[in-house]
C-alpha cells in the first residue's frame, strides 16, 4: 500500500521541485537540497576511491621498483657530498682560498687536510674520495692512497715528543682517566668484552672540553671509531697520533692557561706537558704533504677539491656533454677527450635508421596481414611473433654467425660471385651490424601497431577512391596512407624509444663503432663505477626522449597515435 502511495506522490514532489527550480537562481540543487555539485562529487568519490584501490598494488609496486630507483639514480647525477663528507674541515677552510690567485692554500688548510685524511684513512674512506676525484683529475686516486699511508708519520712527531716527555701519555688507560667521566670509567672497568654486553659509550669528563677542546674533539671521534667500528676495548686502546697533534695544539693554543686550574686525574702530567709543549718541534704540514707527494704543493688538486666541495655539482652533466669545470667556468674538453657528444649523435642517428628500416620492412607486412582473411592472417601473425619466443641473446648471437666475415651471408655472396673472396663485406662489429640486428629484433613492435591500425581501415575507402578516379597509387597515397599514419606513429615511437636505450644487441654486434650511449652508461655503472656520470648520461637520454616525444606531440599530435581500435 505504501508503495502505491509513494508512486502517486513522487511525481507531484518532482513537479514541485521542478517548479521550485525554475524560480531558484543560485547553484543547481539536488533533490535533497544540497548543491548538485557537492552531491555529484560525493557520488563520484566512491568510484574514485574504488578505482584507486584497484590500482593501488600496481601503483605501489611501480613506485617502489621503478620510480624510486630511477629518481634516486637521477639524483646521483648532481649529488656530490662525498668531498664534503670526507674532507669536512678542509672544504670549510678552502672557502677562504682564492683558487685563481695562483697561491697555494695556507698552513691551516694543510692541517685540516691532515686531520681529514687521518680520520678518513682510519675509516678507509680516503680511497673512495680518491676515485671520485680521479674522474676529474687523473692521479687523484693514487695521491689519496699514498697520503693515507703517509699521514701516520705526521702525527707521530708529536706523539713521540709527548711520550718521551712522560711515559704517562703512552698508555690508553691514562688518556681515558684524564678525558673520561668518572661514571663512565666505573662502568667501563666492570665491562668484559667476553660478556657480550655492549660497551658503555664513552662520556667526556665535565669541563675537560673547555680546557682541551681539540683533544676532546678528536678523542671523541677516536672513541666512537674504536667502540663502534673496530669494536675494541676503548679503555685499553692507545690514541691515534691525530689526538697527540690536537693535544699539542691545545697546549700551545689560547686555552692553555686554564690547565693550571685543572685538578682531576693526571693534573700533574698535564701541567708538565703544558710547560714543555711550547718548546716541542712543531710540524710544517705543507712540507709534510709535499714530502708525501709533490702534487700537494701544486695547484690542480686544490682547484679540483675547491671546485667539487659543494654538495651538488653540475660536473657530471658537463662531463656527459664533453665539457669540464675549470676555474673559469665550464669549458669544452680537448678534442681527443670528447666522446659523449659523438655517442649521443650516433645513438640518435642509428635509432632513426632502425626506425626507418622497420617502417620500410613492416609496412608491407602489416598491409598484407590486414588484408588477408583472418585465418591466414593469424597464421602469419604467429610467424611475426615467433622471434618474441626466442631468447634475445640467441637471436643476436645468430646474427653474429650470419654477418661475420666468414659467415653465412658473406659466404653466400662470395659463392654467388657478388663479392670477391678477398673483399668480404664488413657486416658486423660496426653500425651496419647493429642496424641489421636491431631492425630484426624490433620489427614486431612496428608490425603489430601497423597491423592493428590498418585492420581498422575499411577496404571500401580504397574502392571509393578508385571509383572516384584515383589510380592505385593515388588511392593508396592520398587515402590509405594518411589513415595508417597513426600506426606508423605508434610503431615509430615504440621502436625509436626502445632502440635509443637498447644495450644487449649493440654490445654484442656493435663492435667499437656501433655501440650506443647505453653501452657507455652500462660501462660506467658496472666497470668504472662512476655512477654520477652514468646517471647524468641517463638523465640526458631521458630528457632527449621526452623532448622528442614532446616535439612529436606538437608536430603529429599524440592523439594520432593508435595501437588499434
Amino acid at each position: 500500500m505504501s508503495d502505491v502511495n509513494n508512486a502517486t506522490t513522487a511525481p507531484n514532489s518532482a513537479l514541485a521541485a521542478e517548479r521550485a527550480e525554475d524560480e531558484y537562481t543560485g547553484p543547481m540543487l539536488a533533490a535533497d537540497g544540497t548543491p548538485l555539485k557537492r552531491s555529484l562529487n560525493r557520488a563520484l568519490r566512491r568510484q574514485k576511491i574504488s578505482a584507486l584501490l584497484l590500482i593501488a598494488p600496481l601503483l605501489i609496486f611501480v613506485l617502489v621498483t621503478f620510480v624510486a630507483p630511477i629518481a634516486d639514480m637521477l639524483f646521483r647525477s648532481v649529488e656530490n657530498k662525498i668531498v664534503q663528507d670526507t674532507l669536512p674541515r678542509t672544504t670549510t677552510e678552502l672557502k677562504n682560498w682564492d683558487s685563481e690567485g695562483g697561491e697555494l692554500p695556507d698552513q691551516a688548510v694543510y692541517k685540516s687536510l691532515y686531520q681529514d685524511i687521518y680520520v678518513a684513512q682510519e675509516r678507509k674512506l680516503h680511497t673512495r674520495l680518491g676515485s671520485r676525484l680521479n674522474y676529474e683529475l687523473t692521479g687523484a686516486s693514487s695521491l689519496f692512497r699514498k697520503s693515507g699511508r703517509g699521514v701516520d708519520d705526521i702525527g707521530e712527531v708529536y706523539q713521540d715528543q709527548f711520550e718521551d716527555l712522560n711515559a704517562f701519555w703512552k698508555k690508553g688507560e691514562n688518556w681515558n682517566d684524564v678525558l673520561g667521566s668518572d661514571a663512565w670509567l666505573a662502568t667501563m672497568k666492570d665491562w668484559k668484552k667476553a660478556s657480550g654486553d655492549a660497551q658503555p659509550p664513552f662520556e667526556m669528563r665535565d669541563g675537560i672540553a673547555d680546557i682541551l677542546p681539540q683533544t676532546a674533539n678528536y678523542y671523541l671521534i677516536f672513541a666512537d671509531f674504536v667502540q663502534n667500528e673496530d669494536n675494541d676495548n676503548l679503555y685499553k686502546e692507545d690514541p691515534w697520533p691525530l689526538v697527540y697533534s690536537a693535544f699539542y695544539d691545545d697546549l700551545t693554543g689560547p686555552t692553555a692557561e686554564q690547565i693550571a686550574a685543572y685538578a682531576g686525574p693526571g693534573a700533574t702530567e698535564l701541567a708538565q706537558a703544558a710547560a714543555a709543549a711550547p718548546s716541542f718541534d712543531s710540524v710544517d704540514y705543507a712540507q709534510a704533504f709535499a714530502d708525501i707527494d709533490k702534487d700537494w704543493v701544486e695547484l690542480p688538486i686544490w682547484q679540483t677539491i675547491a671546485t667539487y666541495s659543494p654538495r651538488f655539482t653540475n660536473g657530471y652533466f658537463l662531463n656527459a656533454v664533453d665539457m669540464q669545470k675549470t676555474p673559469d667556468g665550464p669549458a669544452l674538453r680537448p678534442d681527443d677527450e670528447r666522446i659523449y657528444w659523438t655517442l649521443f649523435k650516433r645513438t640518435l642517428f642509428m635509432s632513426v635508421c632502425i626506425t626507418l628500416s622497420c617502417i620500410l620492412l613492416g609496412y608491407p607486412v602489416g598491409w598484407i596481414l590486414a588484408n588477408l582473411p583472418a585465418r591466414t592472417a593469424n597464421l602469419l601473425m604467429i610467424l611475426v611473433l615467433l622471434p618474441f619466443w626466442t631468447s634475445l641473446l640467441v637471436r643476436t648471437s645468430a646474427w653474429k654467425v650470419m654477418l661475420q666475415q666468414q659467415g653465412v651471408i658473406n659466404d653466400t655472396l662470395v659463392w654467388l660471385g657478388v663479392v670477391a673472396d678477398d673483399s668480404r663485406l664488413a657486416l658486423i662489429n660496426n653500425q651496419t651490424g647493429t642496424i641489421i640486428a636491431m631492425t630484426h629484433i624490433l620489427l614486431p613492435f612496428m608490425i603489430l601497431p601497423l597491423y592493428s591500425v590498418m585492420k581498422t581501415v575499411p577496404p571500401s575507402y580504397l574502392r571509393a577512391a578508385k571509383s572516384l578516379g584515383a589510380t592505385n597509387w593515388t588511392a593508396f597515397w592520398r587515402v590509405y596512407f594518411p589513415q595508417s599514419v597513426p600506426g606508423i606513429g605508434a610503431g615509430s615511437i615504440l621502436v625509436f624509444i626502445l632502440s635509443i636505450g637498447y644495450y644487449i644487441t649493440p654490445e654484442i654486434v656493435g663492435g667499437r663503432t656501433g655501440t650506443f650511449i647505453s653501452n657507455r652508461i652500462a660501462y660506467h655503472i658496472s666497470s668504472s663505477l662512476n655512477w654520477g656520470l652514468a646517471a647524468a648520461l641517463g638523465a640526458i637520454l631521458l630528457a632527449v626522449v621526452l623532448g622528442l616525444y614532446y616535439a612529436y606531440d606538437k608536430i603529429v599530435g599524440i592523439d594520432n597515435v593508435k595501437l588499434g581500435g
Partner: protein
Amino acid sequence: MADTSATNAFVEFERVQKSYDGENLVVKDLNLSMPKGEFLTMLGPSGSGKTTCLMMLAGFETATHGDIRLDGKSINNIPPHKRGIGMVFQNYALFPHMTVAENLSFPLEVRKMGKSDREEKVKIALDRVQMGDFGGRRPAQLSGGQQQRVALARALVFEPELVLMDEPLGALDKQLRETLQFEITHLAHELGITVVYVTHDQTEALTMSDRVAVFENGRIQQLAPPDLLYEEPENSFVAQFIGENNTLEGVVKEIKGGTCLVQLDGGGLIEAKPINVTQAGERTRVSIRPERVEFNKDRMPEGAHTLKAEVLEFVYMGDIFRTRLRVAGTDNFIIKTRNAPDQVRLKPGQQIEIGWLAEDCRALDA
C-alpha cells in the same frame, strides 16, 4: 521481359558468370541491359549475387565468364578508376582525414581540374544535397544522414553518367531513409543519370526504381517495373519475396482457357490464373495478396471465389488491420483491411467466409 533492344542499351551484362572458389557460381548466366537514364534496383536476399554484380560493374571484381559493356564498349579489362562510374557505399566511405569539401574535391583533383573550377563544382554539388554549409566539417562531425548526403554528392560531383549505390541507406533509421529515398530518386531524374541500386529492402526497391531485378541464387528471377513485380509475380519466390503474400498449396486439376482449377491440399477447390503451370496433375502454389481478400459479404465482388476461415489473431496497425486466419489447413493466411469508419474488427475464434477474384489468384510453380 527485358524489352530494351541491344542497340540503345547503356549498361549490358551478357552471359556473365562469377565464381570465387572455382566450384560454385555466385552469379549464374546473368543477362541484363539498361537504357540510359534508368533507375534499376537489384533486390534480393543476402548472398543472392546482387552485390557481386555491382562490384563487377564497378570493376572491383572480374567476371569469370561473359561480357560487361558500358555504352557499347566492353569494360572487362578497364581498371575501376578509368570507368568513370560514381559509387555510393553502404558505410559512406567518406575519407575521415579530409573535410567534406576535400572529399568532394578529390575526384576532381585526380582529374587534374583547376582550383577555381573545383571549388565551383564542389559548391554546386553540396548545395544540391543541402549540405552547402558543411564544407569545412570532417565526416566524423556529421550525422549518418548528412554523411550519406555528402557521399551522394561526392559520387555525383565528377558528373558520371552511371552511379552505383550499394545499400546506401542500410545504416539509417526509417524516417531518414524515406526522406533520402525521395531525394535520391529526384536527383537521379533531375540529372538524368543512370543508377544501379542494390538493396535487400523491397519497399525501397518498389518506391525508388523504374525497374527491379529480383535476384535469388545467382539468377535474376524477375526483371520488371515495381507494379508488375508486385501484382504479377512470375514465380513463387518473387511472390513471396515482394510484399506480403498468401500461399496455398495444391494440385492442378484442370486448365481451361484463362483459368485453372486447383485442388488444395487442405481441402477445397479454387479457381486461379495459370502462370507457370501447363498441365493437369502438376503441383502448384497459389498466391493471393492479403489486400485482395475480402470477408465482408456486402463488398464481396461479383463472381468471387469463397472459402471458409477461422480468425486466429487480430493486429491493429494504425492505417490497416492485419488479421491471421486458418484457411484450408494453413494457419498463416493473412488478410489486410483498411482502417475505415465502417470497417469490421474481427475477433479471434470468429468463423467467417473469405473470397477473392480468380484473376487475383495466381497459380505459380511449386
